[in-house]
């Protein structure tokens, strides 16, 4: 079983998965914040390798990516940061990036480098499963989980394909759109998760647009993991960002766990 899969093996535990852009606001910040996230109740951390044209991202992560690139962040540096982090942090790290930087690095070389940095998986939103076979073979060989995404607009055929191919978990995009804080989640989220659940055996994690404990709790009722990104980036921009960030993440954790307690109480 992969390191990521084992996270979901604890009965009744809902995974909390934060996203941060490597090198935003600074490289030092990334090195400090990941251990903080790990000790604040997170189960997996998504490390964003910044790309010049982040098509799936809204304004917050676009800005963070741009700033990180200005700070001199490269895929190589991200690999080095991941290597340093995996020495001290006990939870799995996954990279989220776009296809071109990986393609440019060389798929084989990038797979090797991820494995030797101790990274556990890859999320590449602009790599559709129809085009992924080469990277799938490489990541499989390196025991990396290649995690595919599904959107509410995905057809049954696409859901079946991703259910065949995604490893570690399936990333469900909550909304038709890009990443970013939203006031509310779509009303048909439950139906979407159920539609995928019928076909897929992998854990299902929901991301995009989740920014409050209430939203996290709603997602935790139906999914196996909650992914939060843009809100964390915004918090890191504030004064005393780390304190606010840790408090916010613990709040999410509590909100998700309380749900479990109340469910247990209800069942009892």
């Amino acid at each position, binding site marked *: 079983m992969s390191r990521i899969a084992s996270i979901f093996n604890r009965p009744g535990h809902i995974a909390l998965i934060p996203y941060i852009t490597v090198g935003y606001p600074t490289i030092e910040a990334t090195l400090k914040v990941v251990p903080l996230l790990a000790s604040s109740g997170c189960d997996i951390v998504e490390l964003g390798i910044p*790309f*010049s*044209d982040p*098509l*799936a991202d*809204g304004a917050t992560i*676009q800005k963070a990516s*741009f700033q990180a*690139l200005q700070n001199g962040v*490269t*895929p*190589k540096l991200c690999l080095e940061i991941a290597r340093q982090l995996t020495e001290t942090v006990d939870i799995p790290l996954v990279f989220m990036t776009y*296809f*071109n*930087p*990986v*393609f*440019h*690095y060389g798929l084989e070389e990038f797979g090797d480098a991820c494995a030797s940095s101790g990274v556990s998986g890859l999320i590449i939103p*602009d790599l*559709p499963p129809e085009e992924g076979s080469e990277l799938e073979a490489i990541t499989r060989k390196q025991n990396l989980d290649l995690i595919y995404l599904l*959107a509410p*607009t*995905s*057809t049954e055929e*696409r859901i079946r394909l991703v259910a065949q191919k995604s490893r570690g978990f399936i990333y469900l995009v909550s*909304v*038709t*759109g*890009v990443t970013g804080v939203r006031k509310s989640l779509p009303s048909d989220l439950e139906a979407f998760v159920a539609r995928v659940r019928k076909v897929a055996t992998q854990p299902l994690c929901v991301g995009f647009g989740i920014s409050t404990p209430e939203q996290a709790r709603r997602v935790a009722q139906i999914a196996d993991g909650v992914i939060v990104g843009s809100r964390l980036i915004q918090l890191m921009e504030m004064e005393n960002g780390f304190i606010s960030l840790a408090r916010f993440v613990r709040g999410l954790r509590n909100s998700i766990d309380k749900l479990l307690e109340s469910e247990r109480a209800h069942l009892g």
Partner: protein
Amino acid sequence: MPALDELAAAYTEAKADAAFQAELDSLSRDYSGRPTPLYLAEGLSRHCGGAQVFLKREDLAHTGAHKINNALGQGLLARRMGKRRIIAETGAGQHGVAAAAVCAVLGLECIIYMGEEDIRRQSLNVFRMKLMGAEVRAVSGGSRTLKDAINEAIRDWVTNPGDSYYLLGSVVGPHPYPTMVRDFQSVIGRETREQILTKCHRLPDYIIACVGGGSNAMGIFYPFLSDKDVRLIGVEAGGRGLESGEHAASLVAGRVGVLHGAKSYVLQDSQGQIKETYSISAGLDYPGVGPEHSYLKDTGRASYVAASDKEALDGFQLLCRTEGIIPALEPAHAISYAAKIAGSLNKEQIIVVNLSGRGDKDMDTVVAALEVKP
């Protein structure tokens, strides 16, 4: 992705539908003014002192450029699919103007994404779009040019896939766009073939067109692909010179990469980040290029060169003086290269240049550029 599948299926169906083609043909004729003339530029040919240079006058098409061919085709397709909200991106503004015109005539809502930098240098076109009822949204991300406008248009489309149609303006992006845009632009090459056969009873020796995303070039090249004796040359924006790094010559100086859902030649840095491009002409200022051009380059069927800003300005002035035609800065790159090779050819040889647009929109840029010249 489901939106792309829906689009591909709808396009395949429309392509085979005689009624769709008939409506497109009728609007192309009566609204756009097709066929556009193929004009023997005697003054330019005389000046070059060699080959006969013909100009395919896309500058005379409605809205002033070839972009209307694709906008009409896709506008009709959108209406057929029941999509009332049209999203488009624009660089020089020519595609934006064409999209705005088509939306006005077909009664569709039109939202156009345009980089802040392009809004500044193409303000006349911004005004034209607004006059025809389009909403122009400024894009402030990245290099604030065409690539960023495409990013923003794609983000809008993935957010509103149900009611919206993305009217992409070049032979770039994910399938089916490169194929579909090529098909709608191929009318340029089909007409050229017929016209040159009527006038000269033979095919041209060279066809020269400028390449940004590559739609006008693809449109004129495509019907000649199997005519092996017709040399196809695409001219990219050399900007301040290839060695300066400030250019937009993806095919000449780029490497294979993946941008906007297509694998093609891309201008990128040593880390696979997409580079900011530079050209005096907003319409060529794009770090990628249509994947079919990459294929034509790799197979050797077409060749690609670059012309610098200065060469384009020289070509621009040359056409103004020898023909009384003010070209857009984009095809001025092609004019400049044609003038360069025409002199070394003999009088029996024929060059066709795709004059993809007219230059009114570029007056401010040209005035500024010529004033700073020593």
